[in-house]
């Protein structure tokens, strides 16, 4: 198609290479070079072909669905694609910090910075996989793993006391002093049978959070 980043490039180029932090924005080719004439012409081509969701082929939808273990339905993937394109204003193939923080409801969330670190630079396939934890079809295991990943910012599979403290600080801000936070955390850990300097792994999280239902479902609006 004239100049538009095709679905194939959005899915392929970003997943085959490893995501390297700091080596920002490979695939400058994704930024379509447009002139006014191609714009008008391509706009009319879209009018011919129907709405923009037809830019995502059935093959792509199934690939994304498989990548997130069938937790998201095909219609939801199409909806999410429209949302992704809406947020990705400069059509770079990923959503940048500015674009995420331009959603006020996301920017005022206390955990926005943490989540942003996890979602930064993801292409559409990874974006859907990231959101699959919020699906009603996601397993409890999946949700607990997700929460674990939010805590484990350095990705070493262990959540230390300082990690727990960091998240608590994000959630409570300046309304509890640092000392009080440490006290609360130590007390609660000891009651649960963990020492202050012990590190938690995924199985600990499963044990603590596993038995009571986690309510973490988000409904994806489908047109």
């Amino acid at each position: 198609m004239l100049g538009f980043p095709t679905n194939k490039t959005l899915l392929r180029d970003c997943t085959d290479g490893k995501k390297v932090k700091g080596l920002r924005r490979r695939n400058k080719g994704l930024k379509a070079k447009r002139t006014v004439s191609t714009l008008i012409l391509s706009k009319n081509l879209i009018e011919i072909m129907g709405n923009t969701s037809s830019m995502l082929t059935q093959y792509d939808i199934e690939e994304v669905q498989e990548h997130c273990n069938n937790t998201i339905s095909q219609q939801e993937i199409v909806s999410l694609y429209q949302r992704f394109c809406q947020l990705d204003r400069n059509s770079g193939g990923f959503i940048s910090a500015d674009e995420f923080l331009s959603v006020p409801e996301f920017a005022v969330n206390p955990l926005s910075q943490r989540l942003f670190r996890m979602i930064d630079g993801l292409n559409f396939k990874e974006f859907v996989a990231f959101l699959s934890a919020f699906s009603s079809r996601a397993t409890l295991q999946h949700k607990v793993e997700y929460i674990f990943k939010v805590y484990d910012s350095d990705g070493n599979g262990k959540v230390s006391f300082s990690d727990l403290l960091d998240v608590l600080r994000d959630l409570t801000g300046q309304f509890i002093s640092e000392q009080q936070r440490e006290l609360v955390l130590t007390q609660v850990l000891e009651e649960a049978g963990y020492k202050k300097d012990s590190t938690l792994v995924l199985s600990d999280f499963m044990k603590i959070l596993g038995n009571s239902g986690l309510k973490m479902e988000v409904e994806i609006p489908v047109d």
Partner: protein
Amino acid sequence: MELDLDRPNIEDYLPTDSIHEPLGKLRLRDLLDISPTLREAGGAIVDDSFTRCFKSNPPEPWNWNVYLFPLWCLGVVVRYGILFPVRVLILTLGWIIFLSCYIPVHWLLKGHDKLKKRIERALVELICSFFVASWTGVVNYHGPRPCARPKQVFVANHTSMIDFIILEQMTAFAVIMQKHPGWVGLIQSTILESVGCIWFNRSEAKDREIVSRKLREHVEGADNNPLLIFPEGTCVNNNYTVMFKKGAFELGSTVCPIAIKYNKIFVDAFWNSKKHSFTTHLLQLMTSWAVVCDVWYLEPQNMKPGETPIEFAERVRGIISARAGIKMVPWDGFLKYSRPSPKLKEVKQQAFAESVLRRLEDK
């Protein structure tokens, strides 16, 4: 929870799921379970009420079968090949007539201010009519025609700069606008100056006080044109209204609401200023079939005793939204250009902190 007097309490609109009342003693599980906060973030990523306000809604393509497609092609030929040149011709003609009358009047009648003003007002109305004709604008005006009376301001919902042109062709308003670059800015500083327009710059911090002073001065002036204000402060897509700025509502004058609703079947009149320039927007309008809209001049409102300017603004917004059939959204339009205030995040943090401390006490 202290209320920020600059805006209504957003907590009334946002879901308060994260502030559910947990029971019993604080356990490790309660601190580790961040799922409510995560759910809110996930919900915001998937869909949020603010971005919805600025989504363009192009008309649905209807050319999906072999019979309609040639008709559509014919339509394109007619629109771009016949209508567009005719419209450009009409517009050029209008500009020639306008400039040939305006420039002499502006320079030659320098002494006779009253007469000059009347003629310039009529000329501005004329050029606006030419603009509206160049899009084949079909505007249904409902309600009494506005007249220039002292101590009154007009407020309207905002979809595009053409709102101003549509309203201006009926009555010569003085308007308060963002200063734009390019040819629009040139027109702003020359011609619109004569109807008495006020400029502001969103990016200037101190600008607000200067602007409110200018507003006050204008409203109190006896023979100034009636003032038109778009309190949303930015273009919204005509399906929603964002919060009104209270500046127009604390001048102590009568507020006359105007509701504008565009018919989407013909063209999407929303000017998505992040996506394209005003020139592109005008070209888009000139290559569509028509611009059809309804304008309702509604009953003038006064501030009720004991009402704050914010409440007054919200009440008028409710009246306009109800008349135009559009939804209200609790966000400030300027969030398009800036980040939300950290106070909103702090409200959530404070609520969580208090619940943690309270449950700690529960032994």
